[in-house]
């Protein structure tokens, strides 16, 4: 399977009519992040810091490229979510119950949030 096929498979499973088909939950503790149909699926290439940072690699944040997101226009659409302090005009999103993250990010200019499909559980 090519990369493109894998992407399509993910989208078929989790996206319906352009939004999240299933509940979006924290991968670690199951805390509910988004109700069904409350995030709009978007493709976007973003470097997101890894959830676990290796302490031994000093003073360097490790990133990973992410391509698939649920877009949330209004922050109060979230059921449960944490917002970090601002860096580079952006806040990172984390689980409100166990603090795992980033599960996505929030743009300070547009006030829009993006949840990474690969960083959450779909149920």
């Amino acid at each position: 399977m090519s990369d493109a096929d894998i992407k399509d498979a993910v989208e078929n499973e989790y996206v319906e009519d352009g939004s999240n088909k299933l509940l979006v939950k924290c991968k670690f503790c199951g805390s509910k992040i988004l109700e069904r149909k409350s995030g709009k699926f978007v493709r976007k290439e973003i470097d997101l810091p890894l959830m676990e940072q290796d302490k031994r690699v000093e003073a360097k944040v490790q990133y990973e490229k992410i391509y698939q997101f649920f877009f949330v226009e209004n922050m109060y659409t979230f059921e449960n979510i944490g917002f970090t302090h601002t860096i580079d005009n952006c806040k990172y999103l984390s689980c409100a119950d166990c603090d795992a993250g980033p599960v996505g990010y929030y743009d300070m200019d547009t006030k829009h949030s993006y949840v990474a499909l690969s960083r959450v559980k779909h149920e």
Partner: protein
Amino acid sequence: MAKTYDYLFKLLLIGDSGVGKTSILFRFSEDAFNISFISTIGIDFKIRTIDLDGKKVKLQIWDTAGQERFRTITTAYYRGSMGIMLVYDVTNEKSFENIKNWIRNIEENASADVEKMILGNKCDLDSKRQVSKERGEQLAVEYQIKFVETSAKDSLNVEYAFYTLARDIKAKMEKKQEASNPPGARGGTHQLKSNDQQRKPPSWLSRCSIL
């Protein structure tokens, strides 16, 4: 697409530095080799959705970040907040005495009808205790504010405290709405609809961008 809710309450955690405000909001513990990216930056606020008597209530809970001196917490900081958790540390006498100063600061700067609650945090540290539970209760009676001892470390009473504060704010709002809009007087719009709030964001939202 946007989901509706019945109420949105902005809540603040206030109190001396070191009493456990950040710990009440943030629970992550790290292991020896990995550090969570989130814990290095810290949480500014959280959104939580709770059910209160069948109503969907969104809580937006803010930490106080490095602004713990009374002087630096002014009107702008309190703007739009409907509830305040006053936190002291049961192992720190000074933090308890300062609750009175915090209350005065709130009276001078926050909206007059902001709902308050006092939290005596770190109640798991009984051997180091300097402030008895009875003194906490007395202070609360004196100011007619609700009180509970909490442990952010053991997650004891933290959720209870937020539910209690939220329930009190909701009760106050419903009372106010009834008074300003008695049944039968005008239409029956006794409740702020989320759609209205989404079209016209409350002014304190702009605070996001100055942080």
